[in-house]
């Protein structure tokens, strides 16, 4: 599981973290991502970095479904603490091959306690 804990553009961690996720997708592993704390800003809609002159990598999140990374857990409390709702996030979806290619949301809201249990179940966790 890849855990995003920081806002997207102030440090390079989100950007270089996403590169790990995309490369890692080539390995036949069970992969998920979690977004906690300021990490929820990674998925914010309509990011625009033109004012700061850094590369806007947020669009690459839309490629995750093509790499079969379709389980993105967003911590509910982190969203609420920042005045955000799921509607403020990019509408990331995938086609569920096991369910007639139905389009489904890749984003799952999860409360803090349940996310803790999910961490417990992981073999390897990488924080970015």
């Amino acid at each position, binding site marked *: 599981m890849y855990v995003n804990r920081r806002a997207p553009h102030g440090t*390079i*961690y989100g950007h*270089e973290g996403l*590169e*790990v996720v995309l*490369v*890692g997708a*080539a*390995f036949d*592993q069970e992969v998920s991502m979690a977004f906690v704390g300021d990490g929820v800003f990674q998925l914010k809609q309509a990011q625009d970095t033109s004012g700061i002159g850094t590369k806007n990598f947020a669009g690459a999140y839309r490629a995750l479904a093509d790499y079969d990374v379709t389980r993105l857990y967003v911590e509910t409390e982190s969203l609420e603490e920042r005045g955000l709702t799921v509607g403020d996030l990019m509408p990331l979806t995938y086609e569920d091959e096991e369910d007639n290619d139905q389009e489904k949301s890749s984003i799952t809201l999860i409360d803090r306690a349940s996310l803790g249990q999910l961490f417990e179940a992981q*073999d*390897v966790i*990488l*924080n970015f």
Partner: protein
Amino acid sequence: MKFALMINQGPYTHQASDTAYHFACAVLKAGHEVFRIFFYHDGVNNATRMTTPPQDDRHVIDRWSELASQHKLDLVVCVAAAQRRGILDEDEARRHGKDGDNLAPGFRISGLGQLIEAGIEADRFLVFGN
């Protein structure tokens, strides 16, 4: 037991590389295996042989090179992270038309797949530095 380490901070500013070094020494001393040490983010700055600390301070980079040569360690630097931060081996320097390379002995430049493989292969995967 098989260990893999990831180092995400550069030398001297943060303790992460020192801690990882001492941890690696302890692991080897206890008879365990270090499968790979992967340098990412600013951690790639641990791999430049141009580092020249004052003589009364530890030499973080030489220390890694020596440990690698003593124990045949696999020290891998992420190519993309390294290029962003000016860490180049001979091939990369030539490819990008640079006037010099700076990769320290015992390190090699490779891709992120090496990080993923380390996570899969190792019994314990530890990350140093945030």
